[in-house]
């Protein structure tokens, strides 16, 4: 069975700049695919090509097995939530949703129902009659999301939907997305927040400079790292490591050593050997070990390993 959405070797150039190069991805029902990468990685360009807003210079997009440009039904199956707040500030929340619903062919009682449900879904029923310009940033984000959902698309393209929102609104958006996933919607979620990708996405595509660097679940991505394990030891009496922290970095197979608030962290090449070496060092220094835990690498680590740069600074 063909995936709901499939992008094959997409490419887009702006003059000599290769904005997107050979990007392929697919999306199944009930799946949230994270498109993770720094600003300028090519995520929005990729989403724009999938949404039919940009013509690819190479490759193709298939929605339900067919190109969306030649298939109106396929385009109706697509919901776009752009990064910008694509709303009419001078209109009420309800009027905005009615407009966007009408663009997808909704009308009459069907439109009434969709608008009502859409507002309720994002928690804005009470503000249906308020003009959007009176909304907070988080409320606008939620309405922006509702506008993309109104026609009940099978595939949802979310381009950085939580930019600039408060934690409460962000959590509300996450709840909505998890609800949508449980209803079988396929969601392509672009973000440069690794925490979001880790929390929401069943699979993650890491992009940078227009190319796909890696793809898989978060554990799969972490497992591909040459130094996948990190040890974290909580110490008492060690202070901030003055006089000895440098020695930890010299232990065989140890790297990325840090200490903060009595918690010593280090990435080790071999878990068993590294654990033994660390315990021996603690004992030799007369430090008291309160706890010892291992952590799998986070996406930040994965991105660092793939690009040599921190995700947020890229």
């Amino acid at each position: 069975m063909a995936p709901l959405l499939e992008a094959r070797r997409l490419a887009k150039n702006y003059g000599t700049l290769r904005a997107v190069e050979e990007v392929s991805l697919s999306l199944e029902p009930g799946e949230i695919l994270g498109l993770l990468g720094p600003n300028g990685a090519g995520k929005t360009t990729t989403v724009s090509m999938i949404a039919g807003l940009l013509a690819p210079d190479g490759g193709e997009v298939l929605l339900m097995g067919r190109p969306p440009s030649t298939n109106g039904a396929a385009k109706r199956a697509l919901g776009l939530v752009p990064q910008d707040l694509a709303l009419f500030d001078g209109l009420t929340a309800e009027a905005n949703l009615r407009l966007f619903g009408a663009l997808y062919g909704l009308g009459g009682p069907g439109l009434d129902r969709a608008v009502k449900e859409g507002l309720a879904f994002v928690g804005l029923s009470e503000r249906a009659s308020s003009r959007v310009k009176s909304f907070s940033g988080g409320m606008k984000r939620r309405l922006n999301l509702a506008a993309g959902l109104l026609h009940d698309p099978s595939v949802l393209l979310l381009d950085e939907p939580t930019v600039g929102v408060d934690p409460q609104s962000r959590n509300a958006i996450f709840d909505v997305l998890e609800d949508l996933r449980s209803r079988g919607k396929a969601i392509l979620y672009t973000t440069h927040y690794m925490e979001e990708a880790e929390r929401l996405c069943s699979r993650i595509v890491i992009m940078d400079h227009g190319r796909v660097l890696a793809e898989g679940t978060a554990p799969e991505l972490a497992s591909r790292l040459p130094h996948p394990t990190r040890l974290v030891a909580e110490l008492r009496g060690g202070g901030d490591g003055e006089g000895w922290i440098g020695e930890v970095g010299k232990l065989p197979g140890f790297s990325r050593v840090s200490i903060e608030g009595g918690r010593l962290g280090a990435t080790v090449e071999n878990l068993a050997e590294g654990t033994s070496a660390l315990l021996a060092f603690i004992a030799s220094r007369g430090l008291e070990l309160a706890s010892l835990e291992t952590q799998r690498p986070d996406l930040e680590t994965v991105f660092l390993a793939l690009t040599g740069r921190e995700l947020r600074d890229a």
Partner: protein
Amino acid sequence: MMRALRALVRKDLTLFFEDRRAVVLSFAAPIAIGAFFGFLFSGGGGGNAKIPVRVADLDGSSVSRAIVAALEKDKALEVKSATSADEARELVRRGKATAAVILPKSFGEEAVNAFFRQTDKPDLLLLRDPSHTAEAGMLRGILTQHVMEVVSKEAFSGPAGLRSARQALRQVSEDKAMAPSDRKDLTVLLQSVVNLQEHSTSEKTEALGPQGGIGVPYDTKEEEVTAHAGETYNGYAHSFGGMALQFILMASIEFGMGILIERRTGIWKRLLAAPLHRSTLLLARGISGALISLAIFLVCMGFGMAVFGVRVQGSWPGFLLLAVAYALMASAFGLLLAALGRTPEATRGLAVFAVLILVMLGGAWVPAFIFPAWLQKATLLLPTRWAMDALDGVTWRGLGLASALPAVAILLGFTFVFALIAAWKFPSEEG
């Protein structure tokens, strides 16, 4: 505080100079418009156009023919003949002539007679377009000059003058009511004229020039040519029409800017993601823009009608057709701006510049007669000129539907061209 003040001012200046195109236009537009109109007002560009005047010579005398000839030679006038007062009046009403001069039957003889006695002056009928007051004033002066030249010349050298002088001499000698001293002076004067005329005639010379004369030997009857006889010209009809046309174009700028801003804010992206063709979105924009323009037009003219007595004295269908055609043209103009513009800031400046030129040269602000002839012809390429003239026609001139149809066709033509370019140039992609 000073540091903060400096920082705030620096910020504003930096933002202002950020958009180079907008900055260039901010300085270039006033310079360009000022230089252009200064050039025109100072007599540049080949001099002012001639005032189109129709002359109906119903007299046909040597005097009236000489007056017509003098008018035809005048560099300020473009004189064409008319066969009757009615024909001349209709031509003025249609805007084909700024004024018409009607020389009635026996004008020449009566004018020469009145030259000496200042009684029984003939009436010269001046039919004038009430929207061209300044030109009418100029024409009045030119007319006086030429009539005086011709009549005085006839009075002092022509056969009619000799007859008139002899007759006046007789009347003076028989006039018992006249004071003896006046009678004596006038008799000497008239006898001198008779002697001179007889001498000049015998010598076949034209010794006397056009100088001299006792008084203006005619009365001018002026008639404002409006929709109907006796109808007073209502200047609000032109001013409200002109301002409606101008502010519809101003609204179309905002309309175009709205699209550019929507493209910048991502709304256009969302619209294009819907299962609609781009042409549907542009068409919808065109229709809404036209409806807004139409509303501006109708409200503006409606206010003029309700408060200032503006009337559609010609064709109502013509008036409405003009309104619709102009609204469509303005809407297409807005789409064109959105298609060709890059940033709202730069496009707004350029568009305001273009609209100012359109309305100024279209005749909404200043009378076209101050423009050089070439420019008056050039303004026929502007939709505003056609709209303004036709609107004058169906309102205070009282013209029929046929008078509005050419302008309607021209406006629809502009609509088509603007829309075509907009559809062609409007970006097909939103990244």
